[in-house]
């Protein structure tokens, strides 16, 4: 016979097991997910694939091992036609526990700095290792080493300029100088170009820098670009001298005037030569003026609606919120123009007036954002179009013409043509305006045409919300306060015994310290000895009785001790000890008496504690 309680328990058993089964299913699932990837691999990476003779190539071989025991014979690639300037290896090990499974991953990165020794196209790699006897290879990388290409007048631009030979001006301070490097020496009016200020240092440590004079960039619209957060530094070799080159500042210029434009020197002060935080000296350095040719845009093929400033790559989108409406009911046309240009300097397309609809001035928004070394922007316009005639409303495509600098030709972007089916509205279809001012009627009312005045008033504020009222706040905060007070009360109850226990510990510690001091005879003056002895006796008594005895006369002390249940013998002894201490205080110095008193206190204490 099974009791009803047991039957109930049996009925609950599968339900009780549900969490366990669920956890097991999830565990297995995670176990499979966790085991889904595993393996050893080797990768080869370079920081650039085209470089000049002065550039330094950074090559990384990354070996990732999850099962190290099966791997042997790791080989770095042979860097033929490159001189290895430096090579460093770093190892990182990760151990993770996922779903109770311990996984260990070791990553070894070998970084080599390579200097090309001749011009041409070279292949680097592969790096290899053997895994259970099988050869595993990395990818190969093709690198082109080309000669520096100077533009007209023997001037270098872009990456070529970074490893270009030192100018006469730079040769005057060959260990520390500045160089302003434009991306190109020639561009079209309206086109964007980035110019970067580089600091070259050779054998000199640089700790800080500051701007002294920024070029006025005449003929250009300039915008300061954000520098990468992890810095932009490289190593180059010019005339066999090793330079650390660091980008300090960068501007985006948009050409406004045609012809030869000269960028005046950029001057900066540099703190160099110290040992990091201290020392060093400030040096003033300036760049040489840089010339840039700005060409006019070609006349051939220029669309009629082309507006100056529309240079770059653009996309135009259009969107209509609905395709069916009634007369008088607006549709919203959203036009978005995106492009690689400062959108504030671009003239966006406008929706022309429509014969069958009223078009309201658009709500416009312009935003620019930096994308790499370029400024891109987005222009959004929302037009409210209110049809005033039933039938099919045609919204013609909007067009935007621009000069595509990459393809070197004019292009026209356009939105699609939209068609809206407009049906006659019974109510306000005749207006065609969102806000239709009508002739104002005079407010003249015949007697009785208005509802009559109310004869009585309650003089009571109505419409006050319950939410936010004092009753609501009281009912909301009241329970919270009540619970907080109860929690506080609980906390006090919990803390009190613990605090009193810690008080006892403190008393005992102080007694021990007094005992040691008095036993060692470290208390030199009679005053101090008297004070220490009295404190010791009082503390002992306070510890035993839990009462506050401070400031009590001998009679009061006896009375308090009697109330606390201390026997008469102990009370009398306590008083005797205190009187002896008083005697020693005012009598002549008596070392033996002091030692006797300390010994007596110890005996009394032991007896008291028993």
């Amino acid at each position: 016979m099974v009791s009803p309680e047991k039957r109930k328990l049996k009925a609950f058993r599968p339900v009780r097991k549900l969490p366990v089964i669920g956890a097991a299913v999830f565990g297995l699932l995670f176990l499979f997910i966790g085991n889904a990837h595993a393996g050893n691999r080797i990768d080869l990476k370079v920081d650039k694939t085209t470089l000049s003779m002065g550039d330094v190539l950074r090559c990384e071989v990354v070996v990732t091992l999850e099962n190290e025991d099966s791997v042997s014979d790791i080989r770095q690639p042979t860097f033929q036609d490159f001189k290895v300037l430096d090579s460093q290896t770093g190892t990182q090990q990760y151990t993770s526990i996922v779903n109770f499974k311990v996984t260990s991953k070791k990553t070894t990165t070998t970084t080599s700095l390579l200097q090309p020794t001749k011009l041409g196209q070279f292949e680097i790699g592969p790096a290899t290792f053997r895994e259970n006897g099988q050869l595993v290879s990395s990818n190969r990388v093709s690198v082109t080493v080309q000669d520096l290409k100077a533009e007209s007048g023997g001037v270098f631009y872009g990456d070529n300029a970074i490893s270009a030979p030192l100018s006469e001006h730079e040769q005057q301070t060959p260990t520390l100088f500045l160089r302003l490097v434009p991306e190109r020496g020639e561009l079209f009016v309206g086109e964007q170009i980035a110019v970067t200020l580089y600091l070259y240092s050779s054998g000199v440590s640089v700790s800080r820098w500051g701007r002294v004079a920024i070029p006025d960039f005449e003929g250009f619209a300039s915008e300061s670009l954000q520098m990468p957060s992890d810095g932009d530094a490289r190593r180059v070799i010019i005339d066999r001298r090793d330079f650390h080159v660091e980008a300090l500042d960068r501007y985006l210029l948009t050409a406004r005037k045609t012809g030869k434009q000269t960028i005046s020197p950029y001057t900066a002060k540099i703190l160099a030569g110290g040992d990091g935080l201290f020392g060093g000296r400030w040096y003033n350095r300036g760049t040489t003026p840089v010339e840039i040719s700005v060409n006019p845009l070609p006349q051939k093929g220029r669309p009629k609606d082309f507006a100056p400033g529309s240079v770059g790559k653009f996309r135009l989108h259009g969107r209509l919120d609905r395709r069916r409406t009634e007369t008088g009911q607006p549709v919203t046309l959203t036009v978005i123009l995106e492009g690689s240009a400062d959108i504030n300097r671009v003239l966006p397309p406008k929706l022309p007036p429509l014969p069958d609809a009223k078009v309201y001035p658009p709500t416009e928004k312009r935003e620019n954002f930096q994308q790499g070394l370029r400024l891109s922007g987005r222009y959004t316009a929302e037009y409210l179009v209110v049809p005033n005639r039933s039938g099919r409303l045609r919204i013609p495509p909007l067009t935007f013409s621009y000069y595509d600098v990459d393809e070197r030709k004019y292009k026209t972007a356009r939105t699609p043509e939209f068609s809206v089916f407009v049906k006659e509205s019974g109510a306000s279809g005749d207006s065609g305006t969102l806000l239709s001012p009508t002739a104002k009627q005079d407010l003249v009312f015949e007697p009785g045409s208005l509802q009559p005045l109310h004869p009585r008033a309650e003089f009571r504020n109505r419409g006050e919300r319950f939410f936010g009222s004092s009753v609501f706040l009281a009912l909301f905060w009241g329970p919270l306060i009540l619970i907080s007070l109860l929690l506080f009360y609980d906390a006090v109850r919990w803390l009190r015994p613990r605090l009193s226990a810690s008080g006892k510990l403190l008393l005992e510690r102080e007694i021990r310290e007094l005992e040691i001091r008095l036993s060692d005879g470290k208390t030199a003056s009679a005053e101090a000895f008297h004070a220490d002895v009295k404190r010791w006796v009082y503390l002992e008594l306070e510890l035993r009785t839990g009462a506050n005895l401070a400031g009590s006369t001998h009679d009061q002390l006896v009375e308090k001790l009697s109330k606390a249940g201390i026997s008469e013998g102990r009370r009398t002894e306590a008083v005797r000890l205190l009187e002896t201490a008083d005697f020693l205080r005012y009598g002549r110095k008596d070392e033996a008496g002091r030692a006797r008193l300390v010994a007596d206190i110890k005996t009394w204490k032991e007896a008291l504690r028993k």
Partner: protein
Amino acid sequence: MRRLFRSMLLLSVLFLLGFWMVPPSPLFAGTDDENRFQQANELAAKGKAERALSIYEDLIAETPGDPDLLYNAGTVALQAGRLAPAVRYLERALAVAPDCSDCRANLDRALEGQKDRVIGEKQARTGGSFDAFMEKMHLDALAVTFLVFHLLLFAILLLRRRTASERTRFALALSTGVLFILVLAFGGLLALKAYRYEAARYAVVMVEELPVRKGPNMNYPESFRIHEGLKVRLDERVEDWRRVWLANGLNGYVPEDKLGEI
């Protein structure tokens, strides 16, 4: 001693709660107010609407949420041919007493004299069923529901402190969890309703004609013009300028002192 301390604590909390919960003493209209009200009604009946309006306005300054005062003020403003205050007071009367049919009728009459016809009115929010639900929900209904769960939660917490039986404690803990979730859910809905859906504030154009500009100063071009008595939704404030929205989405900036907030 402990019991006494507990009782004292509980009593003091209850006293504080009671003190807080007691609503401010009701506003008893003195006979003076009633006399002034009757005087204003008599003046209005004699056709002296302006003087009547001035008395109503004094009374409204003292009791700004009385629908009868607001209604009468709006109606006499209408009789005096003053559209903007008429619309403003009648709108305010409807805001505090949405079921006031007289207010609705006279407001409709007032709006007949309003010069602007806003065409293509659409709901400000057309976000879907959740928005529709939130629009329909009454703020105070949500507040009461929230408070019921809130108080229940704390009552159960208190009960759990006094309960010794493990089984009952477990059941109470379970209830606490459920109630906590309900309190969070209704608290969230209440906050949404109060601070998003009911945060809209409206005003009436108080001058005969008001140019609405694209930006918050006189240098911005004019977008359109609105006229006396038009109800607009208030948006951001930029110095002395306010962005206003019409019911159909038209918007722009106007000087704030040309508006009368409802």
